[in-house]
Structure formats: structure tokens, C-alpha cells
């Protein structure tokens, strides 16, 4: 809706960007994509710190269920009476930890930040298609974060039905303390978040499709942009379904309907007997978002990794087209496999078979990506910068966590693994740690672009090693707890002898988690102090090919003074034989290639007036698919 009437004034901002900027228009209600990216990043980092602090609190509980921590009472009040975490609040913590990490850090903080920063810069656009909507997207996200944080302080505590908020636990306000106001606020926050994601997504897609500079063919786009494009498409198609589902949940909670409720007596359900719905329906609608969401989190991280690995290995990314093909395949498949989260819910076993088939197929494009990364490293000339280290770490987590996905995607094996710590280990490795590593890699790599300074390398390396080691120490042992049948979301294992064996392992994990947390403090310090004290960055600090490094270090509205550079080659001409340097930026023409596009690039970012030939059969994607399928020849 909003794109209609804002359209008119969306342009005056950067076309005539030389009018005076106040503090508010520059730092708060900025419409510049670079500033919005920083806003997303910093909000994401703050939310991430909060989410991690929560995980440390409940990790303490899991490791030392019998010990009292007086400081808990001082920070949590009634939820930490006598220094013991309240079981209900434990559930609230895991719920909000999950919500924050999945949506606020790894969706908005990761793809929000880097899509905003890199899409216009790497495709060669002055700004997003609609900077106003872009700003709106951030402020919806901000509002959503505020609502979520407010929900921490309401009576009964925040939502505590797990981040998937399965009804009836989330639909019956009396089922747990957190199902009261806290749950309502959670839903409100989620709807605001969806609005933000949609506003952002529409913008990203349009910018990538319509705003590319001259010569920036789809097959010359850096893989980051491909990843962001498909991420935006995934979000665009899946978030609305959660919107619809949440709407119905709100009605179930507050207006006496029963879409997700069946056979609930009146005294449990606020005086109205609930019949005729199905709790499974919510799970289908939720996971129709939820599974693409996993890739919304992971694809940007993989895109960033592709770029960082190629740049720092001084080698073209191996199998560029195969990489695009596999992202496309993952994106398409992600929509038809959501049911593998629900094998044990009493879903039709036939659907279980269908979903299992689709799920295991995803392993093929994932394997292709992994092997292509390995092939890119092979015979490279690796500059082991912090960004590169995090990218390597991502690949390692992607392998470890991805392989356990083959277990969990198997409906038969899921019988004993469903909802155990095995699942926790799996997704924390593959979409938690891996995506966080991708985000870190991106931050170290593009920090000079964002803040004109470099982060301290040594602290970055220390941060990397501590994080890598602690992440593996935290999540690897969890596999064994899962295989022993320890369920997730347990406040304590004290009621079960066979789980109590793992108390020592739990302590080990918690201590590793504390170390990991401390490592993030190093990062925070490095991040914030480098803004002022970091070494000034040159224009192209990593000797990278992509277009953003041709823009001046100092930020200006419209990104490039004068014309936008024209693109003559793909983004991965590293160590090309016959060239002096080991990199050739995209805007450097080959000899004899100049004639092709002599006309200067338009300075505005409206697409030009030319009519496109409709019968363009030889389009890029088509040929791409053809080639990809044509391997068999």
C-alpha cells in the first residue's frame, strides 16, 4: 500500500542530495541505504547481545540446576527468586532467545544490513528503488524490536510457548503465564516485523532487477546479490503466510474463534468451548514460513562467504553458475519441505513421505555449494584475514550441521530425534553458528565500507578463534545428549536418571558458552572502538573486484560522484593470467570490449526508455538452467 503515495517524493532526496542535512535526517530518519544498513546492523547487534545474554542465563540453569545465583534475583526480580530461575521464565527465555536470534538478528540484522549496504553499491545504483520505503522498513523493524522488549516486562512475562508458538499453548491465555499479554505482544511484534520484511524485500528485488548499471548482467552479479535477491523472494512469499496465520491466532486468543483449537473445555479457554479447529493447521502455516526462513537466514551468509572466499583466496569462485543454480534450487525446494518439522505431530504419514523426499533432495545443491567452496580454496593464495577465517568457519559449520540435517530430514530417524538436543545441535550449527559466522565475516569485510575505518585485525583473529572453539564445544556435545534422548526445552534433567549423566557435559557446554560470550565482548569492543580509533581504510582495502570499492571512501548521497561506472566483466577475475595485478575490478574493460558500450551511463537511476525485445529467448536464467541441466551431455 505504502509504496503508492510515497512514490512521488521518494526521489528528491538523493537527486538533489546537496541540501542541508540535519542530525535527524542524517542519522535517524535517514533515507540513505548506507545509513539504514548501519542502523539495521547496530540494532541487530544490540538484539543479538540481549539474545545471547538470555542464552547464558538459561545455560547456567541447565549446568547448575541445584545452585543458587543471587545475581539472578537482582536482574530478574520475581523470576529469579532466591537466585533460582523460575521454570516458567526459563521457557520465556528460550522463546525470546529463539525469536530474537532467528528474526531480529539473523533475518533483519544479517540480510537487512547487508542487502541494504551491498545491493545498491554492488549493482551500481544510486540508492534503493524507494528510499522512503527502505527507511520505513527499518522503522517498522525498530518498532517491532521495541514491542518485543516491552513484552519482557509485562505481567506474566513474555511469550513462553517456544519460538514456534504452537497453539493451544500460545492460544489459551491461561496455559502458561507467558501466554497472556506477553504472547499478544509477541504477535504484534511479529506482524510489525513482517511489515518491515515485506517493505524491505519489495525494495531489494526491484533494485536488483531494475536498477543495475550498464553492463551489469545477471551473470555478472556478485553471488552476494544473487543470494540477497533470492532471500528477498523467499521472504516475500513466505512471510505473508505467517501474517495470515498470526491473524487467525490473534482471533483465537482474543475473540473466541477456534481455528487452531479443538476439544478444549470452556474452563480452559476463557469461558467459550472450542471445537472444530486443528493445532496442526498452525504448524503448517508457521512452517510454510519457517522453513524458507531457515534459508532466509542462511543464503545471505552463504552469499557473503562466496564473495569473501573468492576475494581472499585471490581466485574466482569455482563454478559460478553452479553456485547460482544451487541457490535457486535451494530457494525453490525450501517451499516444498516445511513438513519435515512436523513428522511426529500426527500429520498424515503420506505427507511425511512427500516432505522427506523433498528434504533430502536439498542436500544435493548444498553439497554442490560445499564442494565448490573447497574447490575455490584449492590452489588459492589465501589471505587469512578475520573475514576469511569466519568464512572458513562458516563452511565448517555448514558441513557439520548440514550433515545432521540428513538424519533429521529422514522421517524414520526423526522418530527418536524429534525435539531432542540433537535438533538443537543441528540448527545451532547450521543456521545459528554458520549464519552468525557469515554475518561476522561480512562485518569484518565491509566494515571499511560502512565506517571508513578498519577493525583491529588482531582482536578479530582472537575473536574468531575463541568463537570457533567455543561454538564447537557448545554444540558438538549436544548431539550425544540428543542421541541419549534428552529433550530440548527442559528446565532441568533432574527428574530422569539417564539424563542426569549429562550434568557434567552440561557444565562443560555452559562454560564453553560463557567463553563464547566473552569472545563476543571482544568483538563488541573492537566494533565500537574501531569506529573512532580504527585505522583509516584505503578505497579498496581487500583488493576486491566488486563495484562498491570503486565508490569513494567518504559516503555521499548517490554513492558515486559523477557517472556510475559501467561494468565490463564478472566479479571474479582474480589472478587472471596475463594481468599484472591479481585482481581486475568489474569496471575495467578488456581491450576491444570498450566499443560495445560507448554511450555514457545515465546519472539518474531510472531505467532507460528503450523497449525490450519481448521474444528474448536467450535470456540468462533460461540459458543458465539449460546449462545446468545440460551437464549430463
Amino acid at each position: 500500500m505504502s509504496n503508492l503515495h510515497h512514490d512521488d517524493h521518494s526521489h528528491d532526496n538523493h537527486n538533489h542530495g546537496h541540501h542541508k542535512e540535519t542530525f535527524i535526517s542524517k542519522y535517524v530518519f535517514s533515507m540513505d541505504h548506507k545509513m539504514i544498513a548501519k542502523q539495521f546492523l547496530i540494532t541487530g547487534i544490540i538484539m543479538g547481545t540481549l539474545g545471547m545474554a538470555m542464552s547464558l542465563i538459561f545455560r547456567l540453569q541447565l549446568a547448575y540446576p541445584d545452585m543458587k545465583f543471587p545475581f539472578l534475583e537482582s536482574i530478574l526480580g520475581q523470576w529469579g527468586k532466591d537466585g533460582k530461575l523460575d521454570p516458567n521464565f526459563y521457557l520465556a527465555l528460550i522463546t525470546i532467545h529463539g525469536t530474537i536470534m532467528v528474526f531480529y538478528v539473523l533475518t533483519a540484522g544479517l540480510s537487512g544490513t547487508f542487502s541494504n549496504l551491498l545491493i545498491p553499491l554492488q549493482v551500481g545504483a544510486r540508492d534503493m528503488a524507494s528510499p522512503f520505503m527502505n527507511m520505513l522498513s527499518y522503522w517498522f523493524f525498530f518498532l517491532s524490536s521495541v514491542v518485543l522488549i516491552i513484552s519482557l516486562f509485562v505481567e506474566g512475562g513474555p511469550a513462553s510457548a517456544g519460538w514456534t508458538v504452537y497453539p493451544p499453548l500460545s492460544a489459551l491465555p491461561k496455559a502458561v503465564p507467558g501466554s497472556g499479554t506477553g504472547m499478544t505482544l509477541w504477535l504484534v511484534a511479529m506482524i510489525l516485523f513482517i511489515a518491515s520484511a515485506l517493505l524491505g524485500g519489495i525494495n531489494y528485488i526491484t533494485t536488483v532487477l531494475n536498477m543495475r548499471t550498464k553492463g551489469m548482467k545477471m551473470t555478472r552479479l556478485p553471488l552476494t546479490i544473487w543470494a540477497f535477491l533470492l532471500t528477498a523472494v523467499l521472504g516475500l512469499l513466505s512471510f505473508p503466510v505467517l501474517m495470515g496465520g498470526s491473524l487467525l491466532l490473534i482471533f483465537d486468543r482474543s475473540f473466541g474463534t477456534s481455528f487452531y483449537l479443538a476439544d478444549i473445555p470452556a474452563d480452559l479457554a476463557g469461558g467459550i468451548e472450542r471445537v472444530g479447529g486443528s493445532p496442526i493447521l498452525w504448524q503448517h502455516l508457521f512452517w510454510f514460513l519457517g522453513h524458507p526462513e531457515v534459508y532466509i537466514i542462511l543464503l545471505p551468509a552463504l552469499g557473503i562467504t562466496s564473495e569473501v572466499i573468492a576475494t581472499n583466496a585471490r581466485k574466482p569462485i569455482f563454478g559460478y553458475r553452479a553456485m547460482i543454480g544451487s541457490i535457486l534450487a535451494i530457494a525453490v525446494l525450501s517451499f516444498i519441505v516445511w513438513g519435515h518439522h512436523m513428522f511426529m505431530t500426527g500429520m498424515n504419514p503420506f505427507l511425511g513421505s512427500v516432505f522427506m523426499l523433498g528434504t533430502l533432495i536439498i542436500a544435493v545443491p548444498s553439497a554442490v555449494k560445499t564442494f565448490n567452496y573447497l574447490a575455490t580454496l584449492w590452489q588459492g593464495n589465501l589471505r587469512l584475514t578475520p573475514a576469511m577465517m569466519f568464512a572458513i568457519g562458516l563452511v565448517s559449520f555448514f558441513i557439520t550441521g548440514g550433515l545432521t540435517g540428513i538424519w533429521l530430514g529422514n522421517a524414520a530417524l526423526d522418530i527418536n530425534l524429534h525435539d531432542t538436543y540433537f535438533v538443537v545441535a543441528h540448527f545451532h550449527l547450521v543456521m545459528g553458528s554458520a549464519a552468525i559466522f557469515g554475518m561476522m565475516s561480512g562485518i569484518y569485510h565491509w566494515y571499511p565500507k560502512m565506517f571508513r575505518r578498519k577493525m583491529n585485525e588482531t582482536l578479530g583473529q582472537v575473536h574468531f578463534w575463541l568463537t570457533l572453539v567455543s561454538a564447537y564445544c557448545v554444540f558438538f556435545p549436544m548431539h550425544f545428549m540428543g542421541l541419549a534422548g534428552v529433550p530440548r526445552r527442559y528446565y532441568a534433567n533432574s527428574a530422569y536418571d539417564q539424563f542426569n549423566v549429562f550434568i557434567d557435559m552440561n557444565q562443560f557446554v555452559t562454560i564453553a558458552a560463557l567463553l563464547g560470550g566473552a569472545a563476543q565482548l571482544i568483538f563488541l569492543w573492537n566494533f565500537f572502538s574501531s569506529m573512532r580509533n580504527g585505522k583509516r581504510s584505503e578505497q579498496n582495502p581487500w583488493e576486491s573486484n566488486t563495484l562498491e570499492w570503486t565508490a569513494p571512501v567518504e559516503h555521499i548521497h548517490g554513492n558515486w560522484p559523477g557517472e556510475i561506472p559501467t561494468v565490463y566483466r564478472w566479479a571474479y577475475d582474480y589472478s587472471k593470467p596475463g594481468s599484472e595485478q591479481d585482481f581486475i575490478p568489474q569496471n575495467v574493460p578488456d581491450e576491444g570490449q570498450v566499443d560495445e558500450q560507448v554511450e555514457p551511463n545515465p546519472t539518474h537511476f531510472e531505467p532507460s526508455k528503450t523497449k525490450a525485445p519481448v521474444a528474448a529467448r536467450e535470456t540468462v536464467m533460461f540459458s543458465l538452467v539449460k546449462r545446468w541441466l545440460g551437464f549430463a551431455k
Partner: protein
Amino acid sequence: MENHEHLEHTETPKDMKSKIWKTFWILTALTIIDIGLYFVLLENHSLAKNALFILLGIVKAYYIVSIFMHMKFEAKWLVNFIIYPMLFVVFLIALMLIESTFTASIR
């Protein structure tokens, strides 16, 4: 403002007006057929009847999208970009109907 240079769309036919009115009559006719069929098939509760109504709905949708929303005259890639994702919805609907049949059967 830069907007003066807004691009043209792909070819809009000259006789657009008559096409619009033609579409209007088709849609009206289809709606009348819908209602008529409803009463003719009042006693019928087969899957085929439902399929027929859905088919008529899709035909109406085709006319609205292609003529009113101008999609018939848009670039093919745009059409694909909009239409193909709807297959996910078809998949969702198909599985949900299987699932709800199952739910009804075990309840």
C-alpha cells in the same frame, strides 16, 4: 524530478477500450453462469462441481489479470515472475486438503 523519462510499457493495443468492454461482458456472463450453475447443480455435491466452480473462477481471474491488469501485454519474464510462485500456493492447498481429509478421518 527525473520522472519525466518514465518508460513506456510494452505495446498497449489501440483498441483497448473495446477490449475492456468485451472483458466486462465476459465477466458478467461468467458470473451469471456461475449463479445459474449453482441452482442447476444444487443437489449435486461432487468434487466435479467444486472443480467446475474453481475452473470458472480461474477463467475470470485470467480475464481480470490479463486485460484489466494489463498482464497480457507485459514482458514475458514479468508474467513468469508473478505466475510461477503461485505454484507454491497450489502445492500448499493440495497438501492441506490431503491433510484435512486425514484429520477428518481420524477424528
